[in-house]
C-alpha cells in the first residue's frame, strides 16, 4: 500500500507488509541464501525424508492399484464414488488459494500478497498434481486416460461433451496449465537475480537457462507486466470456474444431496476456505523455520484469517441452504437425505464437519486469537479436516442410501484408500520441501517494490545501479 506517498500526511495505521531495516541487497540475500545454502539443514532433511516416505507409499499403492484394479478400494455399489473423488475435490479446492492470492489480489492491488503469492502458487500446482491423480486412476484403466481428450481417434467417437466429467477434464487441465505458466512467468525476474548472485558456474548456467535471457531491461519489464496482468486476467475467472465445474459433477446428477443449485458458489467459497487454511498450515511453520517473520508478517496472517472467516461464513450459509431446501422442496427423498445425513449411521461425520468448519473458525472473530499463531494454525488444521469431511458427507452419505432401500449399503474404506490419501499428502509435502529449498520461495523483486527505498523516485536509478541485478519492479501497489 502506497497511500502514504500518495496522500501526504496520511499515515497508514496498519503495520507494514515488510519488516524494518531491509535494503535491496539484504532482502535479496535473505531470500536467495535459502537456495544458495551449501549444506542441508537437519530439520529440512528429516522433513523431506518423512514426506518422501509418504510419497513412496503413494507410488507403491498406485503400482498395486494398476496391477489389481480399483477393487482394492472400498468403493462398491451403490457407493461408486468415495475416497477417490473426495480426495480429488479436496486437493483441487486447496489449490484455489494460490490462484486467488496471485491473480485476484493482484488485480485488486493488494500488495500484501507479494510475499506469499509464489509460495501459494507452488502449492496450487502441487495440489492440482495430487488432485489429478485421483480421477485418472479412478477410471480403472489409467493407461487409456488419453481417451478423455477429444482427438480424432480410431473409435470414431468424441467424448460426451454434455457430461460434467468431460468439463472437468478441461477445467482441471486449463487450471494446471495457466497456474504453471503464471508461476513460471512470475519466477523469471527472480531466476535472473539468482543467476547473477550464484557463485558456481553450473548454478549460473541452470538459472540462466531458466531465466530465458532476462536482463532487467525496461522493455523486459514492460512486457513482463503486460504478460503477468494478462495471465492474472485469465486466471481470475478460473478461480470461479474450476470449482463450479467440479461442483457440477454432483449438481448435474439427480442424487438427493447432490442436485442443488447452491453448489457452485458454495464449492468455490469452500475451495478458497480450504486453500487459505492450507497456505497457513504450511506458511506458519515455514515462516518460523526460515525466520521469515519480517516478510510474512502478522498482517499477512491476520488478513488470511479474515479471508478464512468470510469464506467460512459463506460455506456455513451453504450448509444452511441445503438444510432449508431439503425441507422447503417438500421432496421425500431430499428430506430423508438430510435426516440420514444428520442422524443416520454416518451422522457423527456431519456433526464433526459442523464443528470443524463452522464452530471452531468463529474464534477468528477475536483479534487476540487472530494474532496468536498457535491458534490460527490449529484453526487452519481444523478447516483442513473439516473440508475433507464436507466432501465425505456430500459424496458418500448421499450415495450409500439412495432411492432404493434394497441397494443401501455402508461404505468402508480399505487400507489402500488411506495409503493413497496419506500418500498424496506425503507427495505434496515432498514437492513443497524441494520447492522451498531450490526455488526462491518469496518473490524477491516484488518484495523490493514494497521497500520504502523503491518509493523514492529520484533515488531509484542509483538503487538499480548499486545493488540490483534484476532491477526494480514497477510497483503493482501504486
Amino acid at each position, binding site marked *: 500500500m502506497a497511500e502514504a506517498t500518495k496522500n501526504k500526511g496520511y499515515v497508514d495505521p496498519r503495520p507494514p507488509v515488510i519488516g524494518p531495516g531491509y535494503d535491496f541487497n539484504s532482502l535479496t540475500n535473505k531470500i536467495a541464501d535459502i537456495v544458495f545454502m551449501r549444506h542441508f539443514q537437519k530439520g529440512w532433511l528429516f522433513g523431506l525424508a518423512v514426506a518422501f516416505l509418504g510419497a513412496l507409499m503413494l507410488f507403491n499403492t498406485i503400482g498395486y492399484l494398476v496391477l489389481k484394479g480399483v477393487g482394492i478400494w472400498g468403493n462398491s455399489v451403490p457407493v461408486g464414488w468415495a475416497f477417490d473423488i473426495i480426495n480429488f475435490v479436496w486437493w483441487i479446492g486447496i489449490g484455489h488459494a494460490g490462484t486467488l492470492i496471485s491473480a485476484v489480489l493482484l488485480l485488486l492491488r493488494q500488495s500484501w500478497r507479494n510475499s506469499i503469492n509464489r509460495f501459494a502458487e507452488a502449492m496450487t500446482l502441487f495440489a492440482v498434481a495430487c488432485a489429478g491423480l485421483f480421477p485418472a486412476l479412478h477410471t480403472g484403466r489409467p493407461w487409456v486416460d488419453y481417451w478423455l481428450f477429444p482427438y480424432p481417434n*480410431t473409435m*470414431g467417437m468424441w467424448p460426451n461433451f454434455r457430461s460434467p466429467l468431460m468439463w472437468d477434464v478441461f477445467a482441471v487441465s486449463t487450471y494446471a496449465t495457466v497456474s504453471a505458466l503464471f508461476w513460471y512467468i512470475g519466477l523469471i525476474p527472480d531466476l535472473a537475480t539468482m543467476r547473477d548472485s550464484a557463485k558456481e558456474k553450473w548454478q549460473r548456467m541452470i538459472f540462466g537457462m531458466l531465466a530465458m*535471457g532476462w536482463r532487467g531491461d525496461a522493455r523486459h519489464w514492460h512486457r513482463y507486466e503486460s504478460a503477468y496482468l494478462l495471465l492474472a486476467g485469465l486466471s481470475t475467472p478460473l478461480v470461479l470456474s474450476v470449482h463450479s465445474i467440479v461442483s457440477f459433477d454432483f449438481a448435474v446428477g439427480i442424487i438427493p444431496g447432490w442436485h442443488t443449485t447452491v453448489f457452485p458458489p458454495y464449492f468455490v467459497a469452500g475451495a478458497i476456505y480450504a486453500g487459505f487454511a492450507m497456505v497457513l498450515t504450511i506458511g506458519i511453520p515455514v515462516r518460523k523455520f526460515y525466520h521469515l517473520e519480517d516478510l510474512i508478517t502478522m498482517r499477512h496472517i491476520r488478513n488470511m484469517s479474515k479471508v478464512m472467516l468470510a469464506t467460512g461464513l459463506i460455506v456455513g450459509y451453504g450448509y444452511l441452504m441445503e438444510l432449508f431446501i431439503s425441507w422447503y422442496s417438500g421432496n421425500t427423498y431430499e428430506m430423508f437425505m438430510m435426516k440420514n445425513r444428520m442422524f443416520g449411521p454416518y451422522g457423527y461425520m456431519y456433526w464433526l464437519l459442523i464443528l470443524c468448519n463452522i464452530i471452531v473458525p468463529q474464534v477468528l472473530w477475536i483479534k487476540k486469537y487472530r494474532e496468536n499463531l498457535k491458534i490460527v494454525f490449529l484453526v487452519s488444521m481444523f478447516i483442513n479436516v473439516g473440508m475433507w469431511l464436507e466432501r465425505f458427507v456430500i459424496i458418500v452419505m448421499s450415495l450409500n442410501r439412495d432411492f432404493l432401500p434394497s441397494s443401501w449399503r455402508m461404505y468402508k474404506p480399505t487400507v489402500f484408500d488411506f495409503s493413497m490419501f496419506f500418500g498424496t499428502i506425503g507427495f505434496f509435502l515432498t514437492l513443497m520441501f524441494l520447492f522451498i529449498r531450490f526455488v526462491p520461495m518469496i518473490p524477491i523483486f516484488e518484495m523490493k517494490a514494497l521497500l520504502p527505498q523503491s518509493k523514492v523516485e529520484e533515488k531509484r536509478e542509483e538503487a538499480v545501479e548499486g545493488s540490483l541485478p534484476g532491477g526494480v519492479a514497477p510497483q503493482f501497489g501504486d
Partner: protein
Amino acid sequence: MPQLFPRSANTLARLSIVLGAVIAGGVLLFILNFNRTPYVTQAFIAREQPVQFSHKHHVGDDGIDCRYCHTTVEQTASAGLPATKTCMNCHSQLFANVPYLEIVRESWRSGKPIKWTRVHDLPDFAYFNHSIHVNKGVGCSTCHGRVDLMPLMWNTQSLQMEWCLSCHRNPEPILREQSDITKMDWEAPADQAVRGRELAKKYNIQSTQVLTSCSTCHR
C-alpha cells in the same frame, strides 16, 4: 562478468520454440496415422493356415456360394466355420489322395476339427451378429472384400470402431438387394442414392440414433 552463453544461444532458444511445436505436432500426427496402418490393423496381411485353403479357387474359379460353407450366416451371430465333413463332401472324390490335403483327411478320420486361424477377429466386447447385417442388405464383400480374389485370406478393412461407425452412421450407400448379398463383384449402381433410401425403408433400418447407440454393439 563474462557472458554466460554465446550469442548463438538466442537463435537456439527461438528455434527450440518452433522445433518443440513441430516435433510435438509431428509425433501426434505420426501416432494418429500409425494406428491406422496395416502394421497395426493387420489389414491386407495374409494369414498362414494349417491347410492353405484358397477362397480364390473355391469362390472365384469354382463359383461356390458363400453359404455352402458358412451355413449359419443368415440365421445366427456367427457365419459358421464349415466342419471337415463339408470339405469331404467334395474331397472324398476330388484330389482324394493328394498329400496336400492329408490334414483334412486326418481330421475326418480322427474327428478332431482343423484349427483354422481366425482372420476377422473383433474384440470380445463388440457383439457382432452376421444375420442382422446379411438380412438387412449388407453384402459379404462390403466387409470382407473380394474374397474371390484372395488365395489366402486377409481382411481388407481396419475392423476399428470408426470403420463400423462409418456405416452405422450412414448405411444407405452400401445396401443391396437380398439377391445380391453374396455377389462378390457387386458395385453400387449409379442410382444408389435413391435405391439405398428405398432399401433402408424396405429393410426397416433403424434410425442413426439406434444404430449408433452404445448398447447396440456393446451390451
